C-alpha cells in the first residue's frame, strides 16, 4: 500500500494538472470532447510517448541519446524506401525497420561501452552520421509510395476515438514500465545509473547494461520513426529533426533524474499528455502565432515548477 502511494506521488500532480486542464478546456470548448479531437490527442500522445520512452531509457542510465531523432528519421526513410524501392512487404519492412533501429542503438551502445567515451559525445557524432546516411540515401527527397495498409494504420482507429497507433505506444509503455519495474535487466540499468561502482561490485555487467539500454533506445526511436511515416503518409527525411528537446521534456517533467538511477514511466506519459494538451490549448484559444512559443516555454517552466514544489512539500511531510 505504501508502495503504491509513493509511486503515485511521482505523477499525481501531473495527472491532476493534465486532467484539470482537460476539464477546463472541455467546459470552454465542447468540441474538445468530440470523438475526432480525442483521436487527434491520443494520436499525438502515441508518437510523443514513443519518443519520450526512447530517451527515458537512456536517462535511467544517467546518459543521453542525442541521436534519437536521427535514428528515427533514418529508420523512417529506410522503412518507406524498403517498401517503395525494394517492394518489401509492409510487415517485413516493419521488422527490418526495428532491426535497423536496434542496430543503430547497438552501435551507440558498443561505442560508449567499449571506447569509454561519454555517450554525449558518441551520440553527438552518430547523430551526424545517421542523419548523413539518411540524406545521402534519399537526397533529401521524400518517399511517397507508401502502401495503402501503412497509410490506413496511420489514420485508422481501433474503435471510436482510439487510434491504431496507440497500440505500439501502449505496448512500449507496458514493456518499458515492466522493464524498469520488475525485469532484472531494467533494474540493473537503474542500478548502474544510480551508482555504477556499487552496481559493478554487486556483479552487474555495466557494459551489458549500457549496450542494452542504447539498443532499446534505438529500437524505440526506430519504432517512433515508422509511426511517424504512417502518420504523415510520407517517408520524410526530416522526420526526427525536432525530437531531441521534446524527448527530454516529458521524462523530466515526469520526474526523471537526469543523472540517472530513477525514471517514472507513468510520469513521462503524463508529461507527454500535458505537453500535447498545452499545444492544443494554444491552438484552441486561437493564440496569436507569435505568442505560442513564448507561452509554451512559460507553461513548461510552470509545470515543472509546480510538480517540483509539490513533491518537495510531500517529502517534508514524510
Amino acid at each position: 500500500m505504501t508502495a503504491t502511494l509513493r509511486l503515485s506521488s511521482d505523477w499525481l500532480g501531473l495527472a491532476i494538472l493534465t486532467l484539470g486542464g482537460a476539464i477546463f478546456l472541455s467546459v470552454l470548448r465542447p468540441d474538445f470532447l468530440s470523438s475526432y479531437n480525442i483521436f487527434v490527442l491520443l494520436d499525438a500522445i502515441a508518437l510523443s510517448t514513443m519518443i519520450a520512452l526512447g530517451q527515458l531509457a537512456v536517462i535511467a542510465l544517467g546518459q543521453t541519446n542525442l541521436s534519437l531523432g536521427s535514428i528515427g528519421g533514418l529508420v523512417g526513410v529506410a522503412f518507406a524506401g524498403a517498401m517503395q524501392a525494394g517492394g518489401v512487404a509492409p510487415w517485413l519492412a516493419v521488422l527490418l525497420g526495428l532491426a535497423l533501429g536496434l542496430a543503430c542503438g547497438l552501435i551507440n551502445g558498443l561505442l560508449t561501452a567499449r571506447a569509454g567515451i561519454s555517450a554525449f559525445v558518441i551520440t553527438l557524432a552518430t547523430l551526424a552520421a545517421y542523419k548523413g546516411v539518411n540524406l545521402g540515401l534519399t537526397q533529401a527527397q521524400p518517399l511517397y509510395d507508401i502502401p495503402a495498409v501503412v497509410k490506413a494504420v496511420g489514420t485508422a482507429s481501433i474503435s471510436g476515438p482510439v487510434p491504431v497507433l496507440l497500440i505500439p505506444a501502449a505496448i512500449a509503455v507496458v514493456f518499458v514500465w515492466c522493464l524498469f519495474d520488475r525485469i532484472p535487466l531494467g533494474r540493473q540499468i537503474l542500478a548502474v545509473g544510480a551508482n555504477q561502482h556499487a552496481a559493478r561490485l554487486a556483479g552487474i555487467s555495466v557494459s551489458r547494461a549500457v549496450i542494452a539500454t542504447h539498443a532499446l533506445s534505438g529500437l524505440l526511436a526506430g519504432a517512433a520513426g515508422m509511426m511517424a511515416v504512417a502518420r504523415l503518409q510520407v517517408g520524410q527525411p526530416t522526420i526526427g529533426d525536432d525530437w531531441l528537446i521534446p524527448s527530454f521534456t516529458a521524462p523530466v517533467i515526469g520526474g526523471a533524474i537526469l543523472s540517472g538511477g530513477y525514471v517514472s514511466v507513468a510520469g513521462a506519459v503524463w508529461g507527454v499528455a500535458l505537453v500535447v494538451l498545452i499545444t492544443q490549448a494554444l491552438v484552441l484559444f486561437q493564440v496569436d502565432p507569435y505568442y505560442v512559443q513564448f507561452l509554451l516555454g512559460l507553461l513548461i517552466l510552470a509545470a515543472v515548477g509546480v510538480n517540483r514544489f509539490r513533491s518537495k512539500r510531500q517529502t517534508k511531510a514524510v
Partner: protein
Amino acid sequence: MSPALDLSEITKSFPGVKALRGVSLRLDPGSIHALLGENGAGKSTLIKIITGAQSPEGGEICVSGKPVCFANPLQAIEAGIGVVHQERNLIPRFSVGENILLDRIASASLRPINYSAVHDEATHWLRLLELDIDPRRLVSELNVATAQMIEIARALSQQSRILLMDEPTASLTLSETQALFRMLRRLRDQGVAILFVSHKLEEILELCDAVTVLRDGGNACLSRPLAGMSRSDIVSLMIGRAEPIPDLGRNQRTDLPVTLSLASVATLGGHRDIDLDLRSGEIVGLYGLVGAGRSELARAIIGLDRITHGEIRIDGAPVSIGSPREALHRFGIGYVSEDRKQEGVILSHGVLANVGSTVWSRLRGWFGFLRDATVIRLVAPVLSALEVKASSLDQLVENLSGGNQQKVSLAKWLAAGTRVLIVDEPTVGIDVKTKAYFHQLLHKLAREGRAVLVISSDMPELITLSDRIAVMDHYRLVGKFENSGDYGEMSHAIMAYIHAAPPTASLKSQNSAANAAAT
C-alpha cells in the same frame, strides 16, 4: 581441514609503486580474523584482490583448498566470498529487499522479479540481524547506520562461507555494533570464516580470534592468534615500534575569554535550549550518538540552518550568521565536515586549489586578480607545518591518502586564519599513527588561542582531546562537565547523561511543536 581462504605470496604493483610485495593470509572456517594495517600498508589492495575487483600479478588464491582466479566481483561472490565494503554501495531508489538481493538480480536477466519472494527472503536476513525494517521501504529513506546494516544483510544473504567486512562499524551506534557482533559470533559458530577489517582496536580485541597485520605491502604478522595479545602489541606490529601514548594535558582555566557562545539557541532542525560557551584556547568535545544532532548544530552555527530562538554571540556581541561565507569572512568560524570526500575537499582539484579556496576572495587584487604565487605564499607554510605529502601543489586530492586529504581539509581553515574551528569527526578512517598526529595538532591549534569544538563519536578520542565535554542527545545538550582525562570515569559519566535523557516520544512531540512554532 583446509583453510577457507588461503592467500600466498600475493604481489601487485601499480605504476610507480609496489602495493603488495608477497602478502599471505590464512583464514580458517569458524573463526573471526582481523586484518590490520595503516593506510597505505596495502590493505585495500588486498581486499580488492580478494573480492575480484582487481587481479593479482603473482601468488595464489585458494578457496577451500582449490586455486581460484577471479576476473570480476561476480565470480568472487559465486566462489562464496561475501563482502561489506567500506563505502556505501546501495541503490537509493531501490527497496531494502532488492538491495539485499541485488547480486541475484545482477545474475538474472529477463525473467520478472518476484518481489514478494524477494521481500520475504530479505525479511529473513533482516531478522537474523535483529532489524525490524519493512523490506519494501526505499533505502533512500533510511539513515546511514541502518543502510550499513542493510549491506551486512546483503553479504549474509549470499550465504557465503567467507565474509569480508571492511570497517563495518564506522557509522554504527554502540547497540547496533553489539547486535552485529552477536550475529558475527553466531555465524562463526556455524563455521563461517570472517575477515574483519577495522581501525578500532578495542573492537578487534573484543571480537576476533586471530590477526594478520600488513606493513608496507608485506606481512608484519601472519594469522597469529589474538589470545594473549594486547592493544600495544598490535599497534607496535602495525607501526613497527611502540605506540606513542600522548598525554596532551588539560586546560581548565575558566578565565579565558569566551569567543563563541550559544545562548538558549533553537534551530529549525529541532535543537532546543542549547547553551554552550567556547573559550579561546580550549577544546570542547561534543559527544553524542549518530543522529543526536551534533553536525546539525555545527551547520546551524555557520548559517546553513535557521536559528529560530536564542542568539549566537561572538566575543560577547550577538550576531546573525547567514551563510558559511559570512561565518568565515566576518566572524572567522571554520567547519571541517565529517564527510571529507563530499564536503571537506574537492577531490578532482589540486592541493593548492583546495587549500586556497578559503582565501581567494581575501587575496584578490584589482579586477579580482589573483596569482598562484600570492596564494602559495600564504598556504605553503600551513601545508609544510601540517606535513601534507603530495608530489606537487597541483596533485589531485583524490590521489592523496585519507590522512593527507584530511590534512588538506583542515589546512584551508588554518590558511584562512579562523579563530573558531569546528571539527566534525576529525579522524574517521584515519590510521592509528596519523590519528595521534591529528590529536597533537588540534591540541596545538587550541593552545595557540583558537577556540576548538571537536565533534566525535569516538569516546577515547574525545577524552584524550577535550578540556571540557558536552553531551548531546536528541538535539539537546544533556550534560556539560570538565574532562578529568580518566577514560573509565569519563565514559561512565557520558553514558549516564545519555541514558538519563528524556524518552524519545515526548521529545519528538516537542520537536514537532518547535517546528510548528517556527513555521
